[in-house]
């Protein structure tokens, strides 16, 4: 391993000053929720540890994860982490193509057996032996399994790799399957979102490269530092929710006043992500701040939770337009009607019986 350079070496080679490097360490420590005492620790780790190679593969996806990643707010995070990754294998971003690219992948696997991190963007479709997604002439599922075999850990980028996303939405014709259901014998960290927030992505990668371990995960395998609270819990419109002040129609007076978007189908109360704190595009805004409800893109099966604009989910088993209130209300009305009829018949029977006895 002596031939592998450190993160710091890579950064300096990229023309990054020591001052900028220390800034990056501070920013990363803050983003990960670590105290100031961790800044020198991160710096030391990056100066002394050989960098961890990353292989970045793409299955069924739209590349929005990569797009998000290269727009990380802090330019350093993007440059540093991305250049470290693209050195190895990322078929979207690497210079090599065709056979050379596939050779690079094979080289990396051989060279760093058991030491590299496999980042997966997208997921493998399993129907028709995986023929719906071909990479380098072979089904993607084969490349995924091959690359995963000697990986130290796997990062599932985005809703596709974590949960399946749109290609896995009902009826899922290609049987697109999230990574953790295909690879079951490796530690997997899910970073869901469509796409995930850039700072969250760089933060997770930096944490893993620096500390050589997975960050603390929640029950669903997501890094707890970014996914332990709902959008709703930290939403700046939350006071309007508690006050009972809602946008009733798009473009009404309440929408202009910036009231809560709960009634407009905002999925903030059921979505775990860091959008309301980290925000997007250099902290400029996030969907709710721009006047649109959260669509819950970092949640399992978010395409199958009915309309983005309904508070109550449609329950398709009971018809396209049926939600819990319609199903329950109809059932209650039917039972109520049956009870009324039953009561009437009971009264008649009783009267009849009294007549007979009289």
């Amino acid at each position, binding site marked *: 391993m002596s031939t592998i350079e450190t993160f710091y070496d890579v950064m300096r080679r990229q023309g990054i000053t020591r001052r900028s490097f220390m800034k990056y360490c501070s920013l990363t420590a803050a983003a990960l929720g670590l105290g100031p005492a961790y800044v020198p620790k991160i710096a030391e780790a990056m100066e002394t540890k050989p960098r961890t190679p990353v292989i970045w593969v793409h299955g069924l996806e739209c590349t929005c994860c990569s797009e998000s990643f290269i727009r990380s707010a802090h330019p350093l995070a993007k440059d540093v982490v991305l250049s470290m990754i693209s050195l190895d294998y990322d078929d979207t971003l690497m210079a090599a193509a065709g056979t050379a690219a596939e050779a690079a992948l094979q080289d990396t696997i051989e060279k760093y057996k058991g030491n590299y991190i496999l980042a997966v963007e997208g997921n493998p479709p399993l129907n028709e032996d995986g023929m719906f997604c071909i990479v380098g002439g072979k089904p993607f599922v084969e490349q995924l399994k091959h690359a995963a075999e000697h990986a130290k850990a796997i990062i599932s980028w985005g809703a596709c790799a974590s*949960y399946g996303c749109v290609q896995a939405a009902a009826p899922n014709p290609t049987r697109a399957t999230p990574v953790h259901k295909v690879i079951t014998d490796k530690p997997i960290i899910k970073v869901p979102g469509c796409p995930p927030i850039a700072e969250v992505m760089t933060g997770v990668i930096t944490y893993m490269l620096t500390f050589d371990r997975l960050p603390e995960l*929640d*029950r*669903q395998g997501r890094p*707890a530092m970014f996914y*332990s*609270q*709902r959008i709703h*819990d930290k939403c700046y419109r939350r*006071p*309007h*929710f*508690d*006050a*009972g*002040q*809602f*946008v*009733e129609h798009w473009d009404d007076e*309440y929408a202009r006043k910036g*009231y809560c978007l*709960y*009634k407009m189908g905002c*999925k903030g*109360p*059921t*979505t*775990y992500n860091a959008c309301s704190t980290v925000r997007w595009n250099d902290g400029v805004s996030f969907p709710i701040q721009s006047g649109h409800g959260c669509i*819950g893109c970092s*949640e*399992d*099966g*978010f395409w199958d*939770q009915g309309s983005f604009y309904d*508070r*109550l*989910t449609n*329950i398709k088993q009971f018809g396209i337009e049926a*939600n*819990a*209130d319609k*199903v*329950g*209300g109809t*059932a*209650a009305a039917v*039972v*109520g009607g049956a*009870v009324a009829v*039953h*009561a009437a*018949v*009971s009264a008649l*029977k*009783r009267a009849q019986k009294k007549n007979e006895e009289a």
Partner: protein
Amino acid sequence: MSDKIFHPAREAHEIFEASRLTGDATLEDLESIRHSTSVYVYQAPVRIWHWVNALAITVLCVTGYLIGRPLPTMQIAEAYDQFVMGYVRFAHFAAAMILTVGFFGRIYWAFVGNSHARQMFYVPIFNPRFWRELLWELRWYMFLEKHPKKYVGHNPLAHVAMFCFMTLGLTFMIGTGWALYAEGAGQGSLPDTAMGWLLGLVQNSQRLHTLHHLGMWAIVIFMIIHIYAAIREDIMSRQSMVSTMISGHRMFKDDRID
């Protein structure tokens, strides 16, 4: 068979047949039916639980519905001075905590209370005669039987309904409810430690909300049937119903022993 309740005109197995079949009638109960035509069925803790539970469920249904479909936007004051949704949710959570404590208290009472206190928590599904009695009771509700039978505790049909909607239904609602509450309480909190795993199982909180919401409607349907059946039985059956949950005594209207 105690000879005290033996009636010379009847075969032994015919005596209070229905009462005994429901499974919870003790010999003392049968004796009580014979000479006092009243049995002390629901002890005070059971009655208190019933009414507290009824009140809590009513509050929970109304506030729960309003959480899913909030009231129209009100502008009483600035947002920091107005807490309409907050109070609705507070009432929901407060009632839910009372319901939860009550339910655990009720389970405790099943162990220390009388035999009737246990009836709600199990259904004798392996007893074929229970199913026959269930069918009979169904026939009574379908107007196919002329005369109802006497029961000390729940009749077989009510017994099944109680088990499904209260024992299982409340467990479901308490479980999903606390899993939802755990989301706001935060990871590592007590509700999260106790019930957070349910969200991990259902995966998407929106799904969990829908399940909890459907559960509410199941309880509403139970309420409709429960209140109707209680009043109907009070009028048409051979024993008291509504007053029993107030006084605890089941009073019988005749002394026939079928």
